[in-house]
């Protein structure tokens, strides 16, 4: 049956009731957008005549895309509009009125939703339009800027809808205004805080995990997906740069719309499901109260345990902190629920669950019940292994994920790596790093799986085992890509640098710092080599790598740094006095250059 009640009349009436909200938003966005533009252009106009400052650039930098402060106010507007339009669900008297009317809840929801969204849309669109008019008055408006402003307006409205819908979910879940604000905070911050707690606990207790295993994926991606507000604030932008900022991609805008739609539908479903008598209760759904309390308090108790671990390193204190703060948190939440101090000890089962679960998780991690840190597969289960240490400068690791670096270094004759891993497991972690090295290891198992770990091992053992590995051609080939460069044409030049060392012993004592070939840097001197000289150095270094040990290479602070034609690094290779061929070639090049210069003078 078609209702006799006009939907448009309901929306118009809603708009009339929210005219104060429209006025406030007009003021805020008016100051934020057109007023700012006006001020900026007015201030810069004299400089346009005297210093030739481009008014267009001033205009472009004040409006359009990419203004975080605008986004912040838009998100705040979403929260305020949602609460203003739907705060009636927190009042029994208002609900008696609205829910007795011959209007379906969906229709009432839609009318109030649309009414309050329109207050924002009107204020925001008018502010954007006013900014354009001001720009036109200064003669700096163009079709492109109009397009970007339109795009920024669409993006702003979608961001608003995300915030608005997220807040609506919080409004529908709660029965009091204070609880709504808390719920907005919880919905916005819960998952990022859980993420931080997870990383912190992994860092503390699963110290053999690779750093990238802890974060897993890009933290911005995680943050973005943690709440509708975060999604609106950090949504992905496209690659196209506009004149006012980076343009949002169509996919990004669709995602914003999807998030807003999902949360709006969720809010509607909650509105339909919530009982009228829930008004006045902190949580609108009684069954959710306990779950919400426990889900909030378990991470809080875990945080308390982590603080105790960091402060006292005593299991007794850790348990006490979990117990105390877990129970205290449950009591605070119970007080928020009931607003009655006498009932803070109600639902002791929730406290018990919180403390038991938090303790179980905490101590399971603390004592590595799953054996994560002591994982060592049987040797015959392993097909290959890889090891990486940041000393291995030759390995091209810039900007690469640790996993990918290790993937490229797997060798089948892995006994030295296995022994280093075994020693790493047996080594007790300590705060003193002086005589230790951190290595990253990959186990390539015969069943096709790969396991990544990092270990801290004794420095002596590290060099001993790396020396053994250095003798293997496979390892050298992977560790020193210089050995496999088929075409050195991709390398444009190299720098030979001596950071510390006896220059006389190296036969380089007559270096003059004023020489153009030598540049001051952190190094005592640096020699630039290119062309055929460079080919000779590369050839000599390749020969030396067959004989010189890993530990010997690490002991001298000389290095060959290669540069590709595109200006990027081609790797850095240590040079020791055992690299006789290399040093001989360098000396020859050096003497030839210095003598040539002397003769020239």
């Amino acid at each position: 049956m078609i209702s006799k009640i006009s939907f448009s009349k309901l929306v118009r009436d809603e708009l009339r009731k929210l005219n104060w909200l429209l006025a406030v938003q007009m003021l805020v966005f008016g100051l934020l957008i057109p007023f700012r533009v006006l001020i900026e252009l007015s201030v810069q106009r004299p400089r346009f005549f005297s210093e030739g400052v481009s008014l267009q650039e001033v205009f472009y930098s004040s409006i359009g895309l990419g203004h975080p402060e605008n986004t912040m106010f838009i998100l705040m507007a979403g929260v305020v509009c949602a609460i203003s339009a739907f705060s009636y669900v927190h009042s029994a008297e208002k609900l008696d009125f609205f829910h007795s009317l011959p209007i379906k809840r969906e229709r009432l929801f839609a009318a109030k939703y649309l009414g309050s969204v329109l207050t924002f849309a009107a204020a925001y669109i008018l502010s954007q339009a006013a900014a354009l008019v001001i720009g036109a008055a200064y003669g700096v408006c163009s079709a492109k800027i109009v397009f970007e402003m339109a795009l920024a307006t669409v993006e702003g409205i979608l961001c608003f809808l995300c915030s608005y819908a997220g807040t609506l979910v919080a409004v529908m879940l709660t029965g009091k205004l204070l609880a709504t604000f808390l719920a907005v905070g919880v919905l916005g911050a819960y998952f990022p805080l859980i993420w931080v707690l997870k990383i912190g606990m992994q860092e503390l207790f699963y110290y053999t995990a690779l750093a990238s295993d802890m974060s897993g994926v890009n933290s911005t991606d995680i943050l973005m997906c943690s709440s509708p507000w975060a999604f609106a604030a950090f949504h992905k932008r496209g690659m196209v740069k506009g004149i006012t900022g980076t343009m949002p991609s169509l996919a990004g805008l669709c995602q914003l719309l999807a998030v807003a739609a999902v949360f709006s539908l969720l809010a509607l479903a909650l509105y339909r499901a919530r009982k009228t008598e829930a008004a006045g209760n902190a949580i609108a759904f009684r069954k959710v109260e306990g779950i919400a309390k426990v889900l909030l308090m378990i991470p809080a108790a875990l945080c308390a345990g982590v603080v105790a671990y960091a402060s006292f390193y005593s299991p007794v204190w850790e348990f006490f902190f979990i117990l105390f703060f877990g129970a205290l948190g449950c009591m605070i939440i119970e007080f928020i629920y009931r607003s009655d101090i006498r009932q803070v000890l109600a639902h002791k089962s929730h406290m018990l669950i919180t403390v038991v679960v938090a303790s179980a998780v905490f101590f399971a991690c603390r004592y590595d019940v799953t054996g994560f840190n002591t994982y060592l597969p049987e040797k015959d289960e392993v097909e290959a292994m890889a090891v990486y240490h940041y000393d291995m400068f030759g390995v091209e690791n810039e900007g690469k994920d640790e996993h990918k670096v290790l993937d490229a270094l797997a060798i089948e004759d892995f006994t030295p790596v296995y022994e280093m891993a075994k020693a790493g497991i047996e080594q007790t972690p300590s705060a003193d790093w002086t005589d230790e090295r951190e290595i990253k290891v990959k186990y390539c198992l015969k069943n096709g799986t790969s396991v990544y770990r990092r270990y801290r091992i004794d420095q002596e053992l590290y060099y001993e085992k790396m020396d053994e590995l250095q003798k293997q051609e496979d390892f050298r080939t992977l560790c020193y890509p210089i050995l496999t460069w088929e075409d050195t044409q991709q390398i444009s030049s190299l720098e030979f640098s001596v950071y510390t060392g006896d220059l006389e012993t190296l036969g380089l004592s007559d270096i003059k710092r004023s020489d153009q070939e030598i540049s001051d840097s952190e190094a005592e001197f640096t020699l630039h080599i290119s062309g055929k000289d460079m080919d000779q150095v590369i050839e000599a270094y390749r020969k030396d790598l067959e004989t010189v040990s890993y530990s010997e290479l690490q002991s001298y602070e000389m290095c060959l740094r290669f540069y590709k034609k595109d200006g990027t690094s081609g790797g850095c290779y240590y040079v020791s006095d055992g690299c006789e061929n290399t040093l001989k070639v360098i000396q020859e090049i050096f003497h030839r250059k210095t003598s040539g210069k002397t003769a020239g003078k």
Partner: protein
Amino acid sequence: MIKIEDVTKSFGDILALDHVHAQIHENSIFGLVGTNGAGKSTMLRVAAGVLQPEGGRVLIDELPVWENPQAKEKICFLPDTAWFFPNATANMMRDYYKIVYPDFMEERFDELLAKFDLDPKRKLATFSKGMKKQVSVLLGICANTEYLFCDETFDGLDPVMRQTVKSLFAAEILNRKFTPVIASHSLREIEDICDHIGLLHKGGILFAKDLDEMKLGIHKVQCVIPDPKKEEELFSELEVLKHEKRGSLLTVIARGKYDEVLARIEAKQPLFCEILPLTLEEIFISETEVVGYDIKNLVF
């Protein structure tokens, strides 16, 4: 007709309505009475579709009321605390009612506002409690719905206004299909207006009956019987619910047919005999005793 079928509603551990059955017929005034906390407001809110019952259902002219605009457009609910939009005036409320109740009688509302001497342009927040109640009742009447649910509507109205509102209800019943359902904790407030009465107690409806029907079976007689023996005989012959003697004047409330009661008294050769109208309170005492409840201390 409103049918309340096996309605159960609880708030947490509190059972507010316990398998309530009742029928409210058209073109009559139904009084819902009971003590504070008896479930009157809950009952009205369930019937108005504000609250969803856990069990049972409410039918308005055979249409279930819950989330059914077709049924709800036949109802206007006036809660005990009148709520108006912030900064609203009577005219603004009238305009909103016009949207949600398309048959709203705008002219009649303006006319009644003038009669009640209520300023249509004055903010309702500045009105007294009684004046707000008046506006609320006028909005409810002018909503032009078949059923008007009034929760403690007469509470806060002065006696003159109370009578005026009662007259308005009576006039509406004469002029159109109109059935007010009035919940009150006070029998005295509604006894002179209701045709039917439902008594709620502890979430259950004790009974719902026609007031005249109840009055036919119970009578209050004042008489003077000079012979004490005959007076004693009268007590044994009549089903006396209550008797009181002040000097020689005997007041008896007895169950039975009018003629029978009168004949038995006259047979005792009274010096004076008169049958008096019963108050609702007196009827209730007798009726609730029949169903085994002693509510004298509860209701009155």
